[in-house]
């Protein structure tokens, strides 16, 4: 069997480079799968479809990290409306004001240098 020509991470990142949050869907399990991978963790199926998220979700859990140096920042787990959870942060609001249940929307963050773009979120109401 020939080697795969791309990886789940590369496909995910290529969507983000276009400003899109992608996730996988397992028809066998009839549910979303995240993080991107080769096998469905609910059924073992290797039939995973790529889908594009509408980029809306709800804060499931949240913390404010206080680094030894520098300013405190938010880290949150976001439940996207399509039924997958990812780690991210909520921007445009002080980190301690990020509350569980807050409705949020996706935007892409493009770090300086060679690092891949990542999804971040902002309050939906803003």
């Amino acid at each position, binding site marked *: 069997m020939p080697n795969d020509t791309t990886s789940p991470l590369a496909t995910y990142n290529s969507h983000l480079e276009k400003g899109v949050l992608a996730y996988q869907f397992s028809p066998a399990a009839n549910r979303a799968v995240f993080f991107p991978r080769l096998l469905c963790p609910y059924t073992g199926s290797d039939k995973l479809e790529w889908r594009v998220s509408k980029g809306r979700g709800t804060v499931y859990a949240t913390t404010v990290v*206080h680094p030894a140096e520098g300013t405190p920042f938010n*880290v949150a787990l976001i439940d996207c409306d399509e039924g997958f959870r990812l*780690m991210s942060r909520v921007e445009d609001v002080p980190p301690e004001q990020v509350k569980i249940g807050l409705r949020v929307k996706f935007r892409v963050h493009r770090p300086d240098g060679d690092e891949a773009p990542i999804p971040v979120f902002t309050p939906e109401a803003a």
Partner: protein
Amino acid sequence: MDGLKRCAAAIVGVAESDLGQVAEGMSPMDLVAQGTQRALADCGLSLKDVDGLFCAMTQQRMSINGMIEYLGIHPKFIGSSMTGGSSFEFHVAQAAAAIEAGLCNVAVIGYGSTQRSVGRRQASAREVNPYETPYNPFFPSSAYALAASRHMHEFGTTREQLAEVAVAARKWAQLNPAAWEKKPLTVEDVLKSRMISHPLSVRDCCLVTDGGGAIVITSAERAKSLKKAPAYILGCGHGITHMNITSMPDLTVTGAKASGEAAYKMAQLGPKDCDMVQLYDAFTVNTILFLEDLGFCKKGEGGAFVSNGNIAPKGGLPVNTNGGGLSYCHPGMYGLLILIEGVRQLRGECGARQVAKHDIAMVHGNGGVLSAQASVILGTSATV
């Protein structure tokens, strides 16, 4: 665990290595050797009796090879499962199974860490996860903080209730001559201490110390003729739900539910039968989560359960009687030290911190970020 026999094996020897801050240049394997020699002396066996070895470390990837090289023995059976801090509770079940199957007769489980001496960065290699690392979570603290945030949201658990766990641990530590932190500690102190990852302050987080030790396991038959009263392995159970905190199905329910149920089933006991709980308190929220999941109180009631000194000395349920990872010792992976404390309490060797009734101990290990849970129920000869 299905297929494992209640009371087929027993922990017969236990010992800590040097703890806290060890002598300069001491290696993790030096501490394993120290623990092994002391644990064998504790039960009256010697290295030539040992034919099974188990080890897991953060500072040596192939720690079992190192242990064999250092001790100069050639065991018939080895194990080196690495699930984080609960590795040793997994090793207990594996050693009991190996002994029951006749693969070995005397097994030593060892651990050592010099993370305080060499620094945490040196002691544990940082693993990169492209879906989490870019957000700079301060792991493992931030993972436990996320779980705490969810518990507070769903059940109204408060920072004061988390702090009660740290205060109870400190009170036990004050009764343990080997404990690292013995200064008086109040709820107020915990709330005011430096924030690490909200809602967890530095006093909600375990210590960073050196340390290690070893335990010796043999068949129930052989255990009878050794120096100390055996601690019989009544029940074992496992529950691994995830590796990364993002993949934990429900941040308020841990694999301790499954591991506890399996251990109780094998032991033919329930939480009400346990005289004490020695659990892995890497963070204050652990104690609340595991007391709930192991059935000592209902889900969501852990905060109230740990309040008003209920798990402190003279409280309703003795929990972490050595002072825990929060105040006694936390050498990177703490799971072996709770087995040692459980055995010592069952024997009645614990001096000022000795609990009055001491026939059955629930020992519960946690590994990763609430990822790998393993329960071991130990009992005296009265429980066989």
